[in-house]
């Protein structure tokens, strides 16, 4: 699969929100107004790409049973790389790495780029616990860990970037729809979050049209 197709696939076909149903809390939570939605979308693109790169490094150098594993290099005398297979720790390691990364990024931005920090606001810390970010990290390992290191790293970052772009796209569309829904006479029982979920479901139905676009 070429890089362009990989990107299209993760943005439109295997969209994190509409096809994998990940990251629904920020999707519903901040799709009320367009400027906020855009801010959240940009923050997710940034964090997903960064998290993909960092978790790739953590997996490749700390967890995976390869010759590049740091523990194997230090303590590997008389042992095989298979003795240093820590992949069962990947979920908890990734959560820790992502949370730490987001906090670091937040502190860095607060100090160095206050304007961007202000515009991202509350959304940056919120992403710490965004399942789409953990999802993309785990998916990268599942999809690309068998490729050569350079290839796998490049595809990992591309998939992280594409996941964020897809998230921004549906968040943007959703925010416009919800602004329009403010003027609709939605039944009281469905106002707010319920109608947002119904919108998400119908959007997911519409996005099914892209199925099979990338073989």
């Amino acid at each position, binding site marked *: 699969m070429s890089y362009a197709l990989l990107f299209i696939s993760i943005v439109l076909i295997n969209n994190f929100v509409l096809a994998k149903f990940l990251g629904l809390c920020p999707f519903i939570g901040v799709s009320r107004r367009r400027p906020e939605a855009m801010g959240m979308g940009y923050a997710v693109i940034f964090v997903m790409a960064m998290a993909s790169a960092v978790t790739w490094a953590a997996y490749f150098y700390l967890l995976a049973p390869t010759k590049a594993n740091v523990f194997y290099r230090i303590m590997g005398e008389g042992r095989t790389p298979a003795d240093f297979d820590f992949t069962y720790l990947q979920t908890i390691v990734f959560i820790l790495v992502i949370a730490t990364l987001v906090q670091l990024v937040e502190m860095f931005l607060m100090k160095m780029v206050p304007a961007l920090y202000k515009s991202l606001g509350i959304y940056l810390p919120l992403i710490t616990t965004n399942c789409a970010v953990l999802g993309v990290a785990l998916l990268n390992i599942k999809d690309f860990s068998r490729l050569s290191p350079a290839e796998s790293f490049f595809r990992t970052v591309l998939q992280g970037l594409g996941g964020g772009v897809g998230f921004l796209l549906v968040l943007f569309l959703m925010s*416009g729809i919800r602004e*329009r829904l403010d003027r609709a006479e*939605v039944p009281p029982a469905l106002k707010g979050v319920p109608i947002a979920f119904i919108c998400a479901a119908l959007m997911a139905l519409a996005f099914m049209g892209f199925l099979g676009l990338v073989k």
Partner: protein
Amino acid sequence: MIQQFPKTLIVGPGPHISGADSTSSIMWSVVIALVPAFIFSMANFGWYAGAVTITAVVSAVATEWAIQRMRKVSVTITDGSAAVTGLLLAFTLPPGVPLYVAALGSVFSIAVAKHAFGGLGMNIWNPALAGRAFISAAYSSALFMPKWPVLSSIFSGDIRTLDAVTMATPCAILQSDPAAIFQHYRLWDLFIGRIPGSIGETSALALLIGAAFLMVRKIIDWRLPVAYILTVALLVILFPVRAADGTIAGFWQASFWADPVFVLERSLAHALSGGLVMGAFFMATDMVTSPITKKGQAMFGAGCGVLVAVIRVYGGYPEGVCYSILLMNTVVWAIDNMTKPKFFGERAHA
């Protein structure tokens, strides 16, 4: 608290010119415009197609009645809008579909895609197409037919042997082996509708008669459907395709134009096959879910056309009309924002 304006008070910018059109006159005109296609569907597929259509219409109207009673709003089943939804939904279904599937699709269309948003005029997505997409997601086995039936004997004039024959749909052939389309179907058959397909979509002729009626009555505008169909016809020529041997073929090669008549005829076959004519004239033009301005409607049509061409040429489905319109419904708000009319003397925003 919802502020209720008295119905007789019209709030809006002037000038106020009052027309004779009402919701019910428009909706019943659409029903009349769909009658030729309904009659043709019975001739093409037999009485069961009519049973599917009537089931869908009845269940749409019944759902509308039940929900409006539950919401304690005035019951408006006589305005024909639910009947139109049911008709259009049935027309997108294959003729052999089980009746309960058609009924459930209508329930979804009216209950979820229309009344969850507040009823007529409030929905974001076309209810009939949302129902169709729901059916293809939830009951795909009821829709899946490699070969579609058609009662060809009626046309051959031999009514003694009324056996159905089955064939692959034109859209499926156009996707798998576009060069062979005219070995299976003649262009004239595609226009008349003597082809397999969904209940109401096969006859471009019957649909165009209805569409002409609606255009004369100024209920639909020509820009949207024309932009839609032209975009599809043009893009199926322009899109490069990968041949079986892995090479990429396209319009820039001399060999592509070796038979220019065939290229044009194939593009015309794309325009006439599948649900394109029905989708362009009757579904994309839905007043609620299409853009307000004429310019916006043309953009909407062109966008639908691009999506149909992409799905038909590269996608996983042989047909993309339903999804293309649903996807463009999703961005109608953006089109409306872009094509907002300016006040006299107003300059473009930065």
